[in-house]
């Protein structure tokens, strides 16, 4: 053991592949690491097949997730649409019920103040074109529920305006202007019963 001239530093350098130290030892190490060519097509194909399968398995999962997310978005949009419709009906018709009892000029809850942006939406009733009109949904849902194939015509732009209005009105406690009746009144019978 003591006759070995191999010190720690030389050993480390040999392990890193430097040709140093005893030539015999260096030859052994070099031989151990030589001829490293892959020569097993079977093993390679099996590994590649597993790799391919794993890659495939990963992609559909991502796709499925996005479908699920857009479905969820659509559902939220629909829910907001329906609840919005109730609120519209409640203010427009002064229906009896928890919302209808409130005085329009009294202290206003968000539920009521939320209502007047919907009536100011396009003349078309919510039933006729639910997507384009009254949607008090927050911006987060907008891109998901807005179906890509949908043409951007003027109606759509009109529908966006009320959203801006909403922000202003919910912020300040303004006295509600009596909403235009024509649309919402028509809408009420259709929208109210299912949610009750």
């Amino acid at each position, binding site marked *: 053991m003591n006759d070995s001239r191999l010190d720690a530093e030389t050993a480390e350098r040999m392990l890193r592949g430097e040709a140093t130290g005893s030539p015999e030892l260096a030859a052994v190490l070099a031989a151990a690491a030589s001829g490293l060519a892959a020569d097993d097509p079977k093993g390679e194909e*099996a590994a590649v097949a597993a790799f391919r399968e*794993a890659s495939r398995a990963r992609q559909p999962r991502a796709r499925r997730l996005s479908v699920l997310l857009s479905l969820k978005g659509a559902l939220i949009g629909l829910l907001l649409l329906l609840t919005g419709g109730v609120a519209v009906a409640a203010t427009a018709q002064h229906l009896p019920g928890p919302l209808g009892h409130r005085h329009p000029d009294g202290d206003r809850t968000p539920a009521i103040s939320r209502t007047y942006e919907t009536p100011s939406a396009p003349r078309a009733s919510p039933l006729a074109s639910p997507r384009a009109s009254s949607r008090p949904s927050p911006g987060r849902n907008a891109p998901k529920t807005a179906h890509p194939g949908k043409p951007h015509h003027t109606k759509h732009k009109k529908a966006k305006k009320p959203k801006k209005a909403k922000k202003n009105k919910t912020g300040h406690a303004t006295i509600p202007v009596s909403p235009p009746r024509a649309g919402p009144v028509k809408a009420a019978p259709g929208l109210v019963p299912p949610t009750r």
Partner: protein
Amino acid sequence: MWWVSHAEDLDRPPRPAGVGTARPEDLDEALRSARNGDEVAFRLLYREIQPRLLRYVRTLAGDEAEDVTSEAWLHIAKDIASFEGDIEGFRGWTATIARHRALDHLRYRKRRPVENAPVNEFRELPAPDDTEKTALESLSTHAALALIARLPPDQAEIIVLRVVVGLDATTVAKVVGKRAGAVRTAAHRGLRRLEHLLKDQEPPQ
């Protein structure tokens, strides 16, 4: 993560002959592509890594090495997309996976009645007289590995991880679950022992 390469190893000298048939930059690029599902890149990595893994696993699991590395590659193929690090880290990661598979195999075999006793195929290879005393200039890879396999198992494993798999001491330490200092000491002892074996002397303790 641990397999992210360490700054201290950045200035490593080139690998031994045979190690690094592809340039590290190319392999880093291949690794990135393979993580994104590029099959050709994955093949390149396989061809670079598999021969080394096979030699390494032979020091652990002998003639079961091919089964072990096949299993290891199924694991690697499945998880490569979530691997983070460069090619050096990848070498360490794959070695760790292969090691775990090899140990699983050994554990399983221990529970069964021992028929094929030799764990290490190199240990039943030709006697030292046949290998060491033949001309060193024509020393075959097989003979060299057989010689290394005559070392105590922990020293043989560490030397193969360093020289054949091409890992630095820090990464080897993580693969075998020891401290880097212990790995360096074991490798140093192993090399000195090899020197003695080559001189046909009584190996040091």
